[in-house]
């Protein structure tokens, strides 16, 4: 029986640049049986809120949802580490039959007494949506008893895709915003939204902003603190990274508090520099812009000569990108260009129409652009394009490795700092170390080539 790696229903979510006018379907539900690389609504909420280090994160559901998200992000904290524990109500059959509200209330009561968090997030899962536990009511009651915010996160897995989870997370955070004291916040102040402090990246970004005279009020959510989020409405500007994981919060803050937002990316030299310029431009102070230029210049002076060495070795090598959000893909396309590599495939789990249009704009002819791909598609693209390096997350790694293709982790489990100017150098170093390893001389695809 013959197989058909590309299902008919999927053809509209794949585009080859130059083959036809650009058109791509996206933001659809995953196709049953297609082995999507996506997760669920709960996953979206969990990854966004996870780095808030002084909050209790309680998953209300069966054990799986909590145990598969225990300590999964490399999101560092400069203080408390409560976020690294995995709490679950571990629902059992009887709870499903009779409802889990009592168990939830008791669990919250005990955990809050034990860990003294600054707030608690209670995540709803598929099954809680079905049995109809009133999370709102339980949270409200507990909050009144304990005197801390207890926030339901309506993240029932089946409600949609990861994007719906981002919304639920933003909605929960939105209830914190505006409840703190904003006295003494500088007029040159920002919130950093959409950076998760993987490997300590937000510390680097904050330092850049401090160097140009900007006060950072709240990290949302990398190295995040409840009190900071509560006073984040005192900031003059929201600086939003990432494909919309925190955009809903920025929109809400604009509506409620009139705080404008700008979108930036910290990956790659161009985007990092542009991020500083964008913020400086917003405040309209020539001195700040001058400082931003100086920061960029200083950083590039040390960075560029080192990058040149890697570029020499990597020129002409081919890269493929498959990431969660498309915004990261934009930066990666540019970052690869900076080190002389060609991007031959790029895709994301949750990109929007506008995202893909922009990808089509910035990529070379023949580049494959794909939405919500799966292992068979990804592996066929890697082969078709004879890729030297694949950038993705944990689920993409074994696909690359099985085929003898180098791989870089650019997802939330990574331990290497890849943001900022320093991050670009780390990225180049990691790409170099992956692509240049002698191991590729031994993998079947290269051996076969030699034999031919």
């Amino acid at each position, binding site marked *: 029986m013959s*197989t058909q790696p590309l299902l008919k229903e999927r053809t509209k979510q794949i585009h080859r640049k130059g083959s036809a006018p650009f058109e791509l379907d996206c933001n659809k539900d995953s196709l049953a049986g297609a082995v999507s690389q996506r997760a669920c609504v709960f996953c979206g909420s969990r990854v966004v809120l996870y780095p808030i280090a002084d909050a209790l994160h309680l998953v209300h559901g*069966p054990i799986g949802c909590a145990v598969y998200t225990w300590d999964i992000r490399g999101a560092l904290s400069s203080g408390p580490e409560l976020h690294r524990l995995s709490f679950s109500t571990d629902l059992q*059959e009887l709870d499903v039959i009779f409802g889990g509200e009592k168990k939830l209330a008791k*669990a919250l009561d005990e955990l809050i007494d*034990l860990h003294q968090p600054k707030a608690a997030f209670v995540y709803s899962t598929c099954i809680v949506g079905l049995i109809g536990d009133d999370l709102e009511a339980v949270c409200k009651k507990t909050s009144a008893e304990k005197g801390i915010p207890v926030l339901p996160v309506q993240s029932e897995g089946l*409600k949609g895709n990861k994007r719906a989870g981002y919304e639920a997370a933003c909605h929960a955070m939105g209830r914190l915003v505006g409840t703190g004291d904003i006295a003494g916040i500088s007029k040159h102040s920002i919130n950093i939204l959409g950076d998760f402090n993987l490997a300590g990246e937000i510390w680097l970004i904050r330092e850049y902003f401090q160097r140009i005279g900007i006060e950072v009020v709240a990290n949302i959510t990398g190295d995040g603190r409840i009190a900071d989020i509560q006073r984040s409405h005192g900031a003059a500007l929201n600086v939003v990274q990432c494909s919309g994981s925190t955009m809903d919060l920025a929109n809400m803050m604009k509506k409620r508090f009139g705080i404008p937002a700008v979108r930036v990316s910290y990956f790659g030299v161009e985007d990092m520099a542009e991020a500083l310029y964008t913020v400086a431009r917003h405040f309209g102070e020539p001195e700040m812009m001058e400082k931003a230029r100086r920061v960029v210049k200083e950083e590039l002076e040390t960075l560029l000569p080192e990058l040149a060495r890697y570029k020499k070795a990597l020129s002409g090598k081919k890269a493929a990108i498959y990431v969660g959000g498309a915004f990261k893909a934009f930066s990666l396309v540019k970052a690869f260009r900076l080190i002389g590599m060609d991007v031959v495939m790029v895709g994301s789990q949750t990109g929007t129409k506008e995202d893909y249009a922009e990808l089509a704009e910035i990529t070379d002819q023949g580049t494959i652009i794909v939405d919500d791909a799966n292992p068979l598609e990804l592996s066929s693209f890697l082969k078709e394009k004879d890729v030297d390096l694949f950038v993705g997350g944990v689920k993409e790694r074994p696909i690359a490795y099985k085929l003898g293709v180098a791989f870089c982790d650019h997802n939330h489990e990574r331990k290497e700092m890849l943001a900022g100017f320093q991050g670009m150098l780390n990225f180049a170093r990691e790409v170099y170390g992956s692509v240049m390893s002698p191991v590729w001389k031994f993998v079947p695809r290269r051996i076969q080539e030699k034999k031919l």
Partner: protein
Amino acid sequence: MSKMPSYTATTNACKLCKPLGASIAFRGIESCVPFLHGSQGCATYMRRYIISHFNEPIDIASSSLGEKNAIYGGGPNLKLGLKNVTTKYAPKLIGVATTCLTETIGDDVPMLLAEYHKEFGGPESPLVVHVSTPSYSGTHMEGFHIAVKAVIEQLAGEAEANDTLNLLSGFVSTADIRYLREVMDDFGITATILPDYSDTLDGPALNDYPLIPEGGTPLAAIKQMGGAIATVELGATLPTETGGTVLQRAHGVKLHRTGMPIGIRATDDFFDLLAELSGKKIPKRHVAARGRLVDSMVDGHKYIFGKRAVVYGEEDLVVGLAGFLAEIGVKPVLCASGGKSGKMAASIAAAIDGLDCDLPVVKEDVDFFDIETMAKELGVDLVIGHSKGYTFARKENLPLIRVGFPIHDRVGGQRILHLGYHGAQALFDLIANTVIDQKQTDSPVGYSYM
């Protein structure tokens, strides 16, 4: 020991959910695609968790149910998913496991599958095995065993008597399965090892991404299991009803249950059983391995005697390890699991019997919060179990001996050998050297002889 505070919530669970175990078991069958009937997240999370241990791709399909399906039933998505998996992968078997979502909305999977076969079935259609695995009851181990049982119930038909042996080895490592295969070969036994993911979850580098990796228990062999001379089932805490009991009851295949062959005595039992079943002497290679193991235990006994260990993980693994530790003079002071078979304490007592080892504290249905609290109170020198104990080991500055599943923070976790004299040898060297290393590191002067 003071009474444990009994918290309502689970903190850092020492168990996984049922469909994960079923997925791994299905992965160990020839040309089989595991399929979760539930929301997309379940399949993706489990894939990620399994991948991080095996460093190997694993495609788990999903019926990707959405909100509408929860109201009107998941049938249409299940059928569409099966159709798509068939088109894309051309499997010989699809293993459908339910999730808490589809169990709660009450999807009647056997009925849906019957409809599916009627609507879309043909001579080339894959077989479909289904198993009920709601995540809100039991752990991944129940999921694993119940999937093996379902495969046997639904695929092993009437078979003519043959001279094969059924070996239901439980959730062991890929290295363990390869070792068991060698042992069978050495005895000249033709064995059907079910499941066998030694290739499908630990395969070679390839030129083409396989739709479904090669290997797995052959379907033809599974169909013949009812005619085997006997079934050997490994594990001391197995559920009452298993694949082995099904074969015994439905096909009259005699069932022999023996604990995981971890350490000397449990391995002796296993080899004696094989000798009896095959009518052959224990092969020289294994007699020699046993001899070397005992010799090495003599060489190294001094360094580890009296050390106190906490052992956690799947119950059968913990029972096996507790017995082995008692054999080498290490005290298993705390044996813990997230599972709750109700059989662990008695099994451990039996495993350490006669070795001058005090009964350890044995705890079922506990999480790492409990394990840490108890271990601290009891005082331990060694932490033995999967990589999720790292948090605790690091905090207490204790060495972690990595065994079992998952091992997410080392390469080669899937290749750790636990079973047989060879496995015991590897474990003994690892444990002894870990203790020696620590003493050497802590020494103010350092030394270059033991």
